[in-house]
């Protein structure tokens, strides 16, 4: 989920604890509501791709990382196998490991709470937490954002799925054009220098080039392998 730009500081620096916390809650709710609206489109796209109500809502509960969820249902909707979609979702989820790394010292969670905290490690919670100077404020921001987002993300998914189930032909509403637009909106905040723009253009071109020759979903995995090779190689310079 990348409604706000990733890793960008939110809100004013902490001043007075009470005031700051209220500000954090307000920001967390704002992000939650924006993501809830975005989850409505996820519910609609997943349903259009052929997922049942329970499959769609399970994904939001269990996967809870927007870009991966959109990728999985996007690949399935385009006729790819569920496994190609699953691999793409996992590759997109790899960035959450780096977010977790940044957060682990800050959160300082142990035992059962660590397993709950891990589920909340996504773009928005990371951005909200690392923007704080004070560790206690950072933890508060992480949990407030995580709880608001998890609640509204799942509620939005349910609404989107139920509403789309009521439609006889979602294509009439142009819902087949929704997934690529969603991917573009997720991609845009990451294109802020020349290198990612070049990589994005190259990745798009390679995917279209190999598309006629391999099963649906596989072009994405070819792109993933190439970019991994590129990233691992260029460090040697």
């Amino acid at each position, binding site marked *: 989920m990348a409604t706000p730009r990733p890793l960008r500081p939110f809100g004013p620096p902490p001043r007075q604890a009470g005031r700051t916390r209220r500000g954090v809650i307000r920001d967390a709710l704002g992000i939650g509501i924006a993501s809830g*609206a975005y989850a409505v489109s996820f519910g609609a796209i997943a349903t259009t791709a052929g997922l049942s109500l329970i499959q769609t809502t399970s994904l939001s509960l269990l996967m809870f990382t927007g870009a991966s969820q959109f990728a999985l249902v996007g690949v399935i909707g385009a006729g790819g196998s569920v496994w190609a979609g699953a*691999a793409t979702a996992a590759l997109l989820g790899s960035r959450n*490991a780096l977010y977790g790394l940044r957060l682990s010292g800050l959160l300082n969670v142990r035992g059962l709470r*660590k397993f709950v905290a891990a589920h909340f490690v996504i773009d928005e919670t990371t951005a909200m937490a690392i923007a704080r100077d004070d560790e206690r404020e950072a933890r508060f921001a992480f949990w407030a954002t995580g709880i608001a987002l998890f609640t509204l993300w799942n509620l939005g998914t349910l609404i989107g799925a139920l509403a789309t189930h009521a439609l006889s032909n979602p294509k009439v509403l*142009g819902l087949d054009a*929704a997934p690529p637009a969603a991917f573009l909106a997720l*991609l845009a905040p990451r294109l802020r220098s020349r290198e990612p723009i070049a990589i*994005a253009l190259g990745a798009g071109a390679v*995917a279209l080039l190999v598309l006629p020759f391999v099963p649906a979903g596989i072009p994405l995995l070819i*792109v993933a392998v190439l970019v991994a090779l590129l990233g691992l190689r260029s460090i040697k310079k």
Partner: protein
Amino acid sequence: MFWAGLLTASVACYVLKLAGVSLPQRWLQNPRIQRTVPLMPVALLAALVATQTFSTGRHLVLDVRAAAMGVALIAVLLRAPFLVVVVAAAATAALLRLL
């Protein structure tokens, strides 16, 4: 099979999050990993945009979705919120089909 794929993907995504908060810091602080991981979403999202706009199955096609993506691109450049981008693209495709 379908459920197995969904659950495997969900577990994989959770394990990645858990690995971040659990693994020794130095494992993920490897400069190669630090460099490669942020490139992954850029490449995959761009590939998803391209394939889902310009193909149906294994065929490259140019249809109303290309126009819809043009509208989405304008919305993104105007920094429209996520939902506005998606709805604008869907509405463009729906309208062009009505014509």
